């Protein structure tokens, strides 16, 4: 058990030591830089304490981009290790840690926050609101997510990363078989981030249900807002299951309870069930908003209203209901019998029906449209065929009896990357390009954007299509190496080259960000794409109060009809605007969460209790605080509107 010996700082792995040094150097230079340029006050006032949904959204997306980089490096290391037979880049333990952190980070700390970031930026604007229902809670959500991310990421230098896979199945994830603190990090950091996500779910449900502009009935909401509404319903009912599962994991590992134990009446399969009762809806939490983003982009750049609006809504509701009754398809082969497998097989295949309806709706929206091939549109167009490959292979995997042949192989890995990358990643990148000018007032460069698109799309297929074949040839997933005689070598090498191409694509994307910040021409209109929904009706960058006057909505795509028929969206005089105050409390309270979480990972009980009490002190302070926000005067609003180039 030498290799499992507990270390506080991980010093026996040169790559990790290198990462540690670069983190320290990076943090120091950031600290010195901010101090030198005297930006601490600015950071505190404008970002850390902000309750503005747009800024919170931007921070979510920033963290997501950093995590895309971290998860991407993990991916490159894995593909590098398997590129050649019997390669020595990583040892088995390190490989286990890396596929675990890759999965957790990409799903929970990259896809989710990217989606939630776009949701934050766009949803209140699309429904003509000035902020979310509970702006302070929104800040709490973000900071809980941020400290959860931080806690998870320090695991690889302090104490060791989790190594039982992103699904952390018992008994492997139990103290007996995973004795390092890695899986404590897993349980506690996801718990903290999950609390933030649950708060987001409640916040946005209330926002969308109660704060829509006058005249915007549910069936006149933009499709993205619809997708967010349904997503948040899923969040509210799925995340508590994760909360319980993670709490039970923590108790089994740290308090000696017997939930998932192999003796004393415990049941290891209970974990798999709980995990996937949350885990499968989670898949739809990241895919439904993506469908919403594509719907907006496709109808904007086809210059047509979305085909089959009602069927789009109905199919999303159907998907959300079905998402809760398919979880057992993640473990067909774990022996729950023919009857159960058949039922879950059928419910799983049923999901293809509403998804198919959506695919046809997008195609029919494109039909006879005047299509402009912008960067966001290119991602949306590429999504349709690639995602369909992912969907069809999903139906193959849904057939329980056939699944026995290729379950747990690279075929599965290829399948879920074929749904998650064109589904979620392409969508958030497309949404990023699409809504960027709304937040910052200028577009990202189209030439570089398209170059990155071609790199990413082609490399994606080069990286993942070979995995289908490798899987059917019998290569299992999570295998850190293989012998030459298996013949897996050439296709794995091809896949590695694709992964490198994907990396280059993402570097071009980030370079585009840099280039555009410096050189991109500024947009004065606030509506650079000639788009359809309300977020484009106000200025870009959006003033902090969003709309000087709340718009009056009569149609679906209200802004489009206002433009085409010269109908005014506003009437009446500007009134004073009520806005929430900034607060440093969410940040400080999340700091206490970080302290409590970190100490709990190492079972340092006394400091854990002290930090936990501190959390409750912050809650009590909040309860006694009297904060009624403030008013922006009519003169102030008029002045800002004039500065932004005329009243909107």
């Amino acid at each position, binding site marked *: 058990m030498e290799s499992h010996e507990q270390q506080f700082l991980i010093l026996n792995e040169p790559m990790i030591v290198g990462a540690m040094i670069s983190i320290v150097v990076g943090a120091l230079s950031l600290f010195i830089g901010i101090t030198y340029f005297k930006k601490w006050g600015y950071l505190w006032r404008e970002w850390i304490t902000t309750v503005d949904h747009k800024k919170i959204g931007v921070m979510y997306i920033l963290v997501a981009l950093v995590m895309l980089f971290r998860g991407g490096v993990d991916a490159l290391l894995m593909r590098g290790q398997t590129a050649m037979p019997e390669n020595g880049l990583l040892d088995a333990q390190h490989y286990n840690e890396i596929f675990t952190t890759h999965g957790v980070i990409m799903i929970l700390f990259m896809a989710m926050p990217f989606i939630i970031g776009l949701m934050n930026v766009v949803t209140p604007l699309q429904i003509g609101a000035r902020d979310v229902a509970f702006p302070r809670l929104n800040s709490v959500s973000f900071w809980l997510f941020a400290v959860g991310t931080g806690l998870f990421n320090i695991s690889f230098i302090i104490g060791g990363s989790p190594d039982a896979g992103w699904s952390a199945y018992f008994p492997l994830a139990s103290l007996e078989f995973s004795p390092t603190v890695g899986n404590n990090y897993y349980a506690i950091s996801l718990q903290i981030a999950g609390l933030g996500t649950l708060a987001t779910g*409640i*916040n946005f449900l209330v926002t969308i249900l109660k704060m829509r502009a006058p005249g915007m009935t549910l069936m006149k909401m933009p499709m993205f807002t619809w997708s967010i509404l349904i997503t948040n319903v899923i969040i*509210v009912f799925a995340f508590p*299951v994760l909360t319980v599962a993670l709490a039970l994991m923590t108790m089994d590992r740290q308090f000696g309870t017997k939930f998932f134990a192999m003796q004393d009446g415990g*049941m290891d399969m209970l974990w798999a069930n709980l995990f996937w009762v949350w885990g499968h809806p989670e898949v739809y939490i990241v895919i439904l908003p993506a469908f919403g983003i594509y719907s907006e982009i496709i109808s904007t750049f086809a210059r047509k209203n979305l085909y089959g609006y009602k069927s789009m809504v109905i199919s999303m509701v159907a998907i959300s209901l079905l998402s809760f009754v398919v979880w057992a398809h993640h473990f067909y082969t774990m022996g729950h019998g023919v009857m159960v497998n058949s039922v879950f097989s059928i419910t799983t295949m049923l999901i293809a029906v509403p998804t198919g309806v959506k695919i046809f709706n997008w195609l029919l929206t494109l039909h006879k449209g005047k299509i402009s091939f912008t960067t966001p549109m290119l991602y949306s167009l590429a999504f349709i065929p690639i995602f369909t490959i992912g969907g069809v292979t999903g139906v193959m995997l849904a057939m329980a009896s056939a699944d026995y042949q290729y379950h747990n192989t690279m075929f599965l890995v290829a399948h879920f990357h074929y749904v998650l990358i064109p589904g979620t990643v392409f969508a958030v990148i497309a949404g990023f390009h699409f809504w960027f000018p709304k937040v910052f007032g200028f577009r990202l460069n189209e030439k570089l954007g398209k170059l990155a698109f071609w790199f990413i799309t082609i490399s994606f297929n080069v990286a993942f299509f070979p995995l289908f074949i490798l899987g059917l040839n019998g290569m299992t997933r999570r295998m850190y190496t293989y012998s030459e005689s298996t013949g897996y070598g050439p296709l794995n090498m091809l896949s590695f080259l694709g992964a490198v191409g994907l990396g280059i694509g993402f570097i071009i994307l980030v370079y585009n960000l840099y280039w555009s910040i410096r050189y991109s021409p500024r947009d004065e209109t606030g509506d650079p794409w000639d788009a359809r929904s309300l977020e484009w009706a106000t200025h870009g960058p959006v003033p902090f109060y969003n709309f000087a006057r709340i718009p009056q909505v009569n149609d679906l795509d209200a802004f489009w009809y206002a433009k085409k028929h010269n109908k005014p969206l506003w009437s009446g005089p500007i009134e004073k605007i009520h806005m929430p105050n900034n607060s440093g409390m969410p940040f400080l309270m999340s700091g206490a969460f970080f302290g409590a979480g970190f100490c709990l990972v190492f079972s340092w009980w006394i400091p854990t209790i002290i930090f936990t009490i501190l959390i409750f002190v912050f809650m009590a302070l909040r309860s006694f605080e009297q904060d009624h926000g403030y008013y922006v005067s009519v003169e102030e609003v008029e002045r800002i509107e004039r500065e932004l180039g005329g009243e909107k």
Partner: protein
Amino acid sequence: MKIDESLPLEYSTEENRLKILGFWIFLGAEIALFSTLFAVYFTLHNGHGDGPSAEELFKITPVMIETVLLLTSSFTIGLGIHAMRLGLKKAMMTFFVITLVLGLGFLGTEIYEFVEYIHEGATIQTSAFTSSLMTLLGTHGAHVTFGFFWGVAILIQVAKRGLTPETANKSFIFSLYWHFLDVVWIFIFSFVYLKGMM
């Protein structure tokens, strides 16, 4: 702040209405949380290993005391909200105090019950049955404990600031929470204790 005089105080502002809906949705999440804990319990309740089974462990007396205390407290907080709607600050505070005292009584009995269990050799580590039982009861008990301190904080604010739209809103939301804990207890009483003793 626009105050709509035609509505009860706790619903009278836009912010208050948002908070009440938000809290209902939060209770929806709480239902999902407790449902999961119940599901875990029903999956594991026969797995008592070498430890005591439900039949051997459960005693009706403390459970009945807990039930009566908590159900009564749910009634008194209802009276408290009724008094609040009539604008009777003093009556409302009295009923809230009674509610919290009953809550304390519930907690005291539950702690006594837990100590008894431990004496009989049933700790949270004994078997999957005791783990899931004590986690379910403990989560409910922790909610009641949190509710107690929350209620005290609200009482202090009502005493200091009177019945304003803000304090009325907090009190009303707190009452929703308290009723919810009562509902959860009814399920624990029926499907954990009564079923376990059969």
